[in-house]
């Protein structure tokens, strides 16, 4: 194990747990999406850390690039659905009020 990579490992684990905690803690859909993205960033960092540790840098790079592409598509769909739900008042009252604040 490379000791100089420890900050990367710690940061990725903290990001994953913060994201999961935010996902559980918040009830607003946008906040949940943002927490999910924090967690996703942590997973990206963890993947690259693992790739660097186990000498699979090429595979790790290509995997992370594909993951970023899929995440962008996912964000586009979720945000579009969210805008639709917001305009038609389909969100829960708490989410609606929090977004309008």
């Amino acid at each position: 194990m490379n000791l100089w990579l420890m900050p990367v490992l710690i940061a990725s684990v903290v990001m994953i747990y913060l994201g999961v905690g935010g996902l559980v803690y918040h009830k607003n859909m946008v906040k949940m999406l943002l927490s999910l993205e924090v967690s996703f960033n942590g997973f990206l960092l963890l993947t690259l850390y693992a790739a660097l540790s186990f000498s699979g840098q090429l595979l790790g790079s290509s995997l992370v690039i594909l993951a970023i592409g899929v995440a962008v598509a996912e964000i586009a769909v979720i945000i579009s659905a969210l805008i639709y739900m917001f305009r038609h008042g389909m969100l829960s009252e708490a989410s609606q009020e929090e977004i309008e604040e």
Partner: protein
Amino acid sequence: MSPLLELALILLAIGAIVFSTLTVFHKSLIYSSVFLALLGLANAAIFAMLGYYLVAFVQIVIYVGAAVLFIVISVSMFREPLMTFRSWSFLCVVAAFAVLLVAAVALASSAFPGYITTVPVQQVVKLIIDNGFAVVILMFALSIGLVAAVAISRGGEQE
């Protein structure tokens, strides 16, 4: 690794943790989205310092440049954003962080070239192209995402 580079990596990791905390727990949705963009930048700097230059480029151009900006613009469409920070101090903090990122990456790539194992960009691109199934899945996901987003938006307008 050089102690200076280790310090830069530690600072970037601390910055990433701080920005992720602010993203999750800040009250304003707009500022949470902006902090998510800064988190993406910090992550890109860490990727570059680890030698993944192509991944850092993709992270900045596609993730921060497209996805997070899309979130920021969409959220700001809900309602006019409230300024909870003083804009000048906020700008100074962002500018200082950007300078730190650029300095760290420039230092890592030019001043200490021997310490970083750079992942060859051509080999990564060749690996992705050779495994065509992954590219097909990516194109499928992106086109489905685009069609779904347009369909949802148009459906909202027609009703």
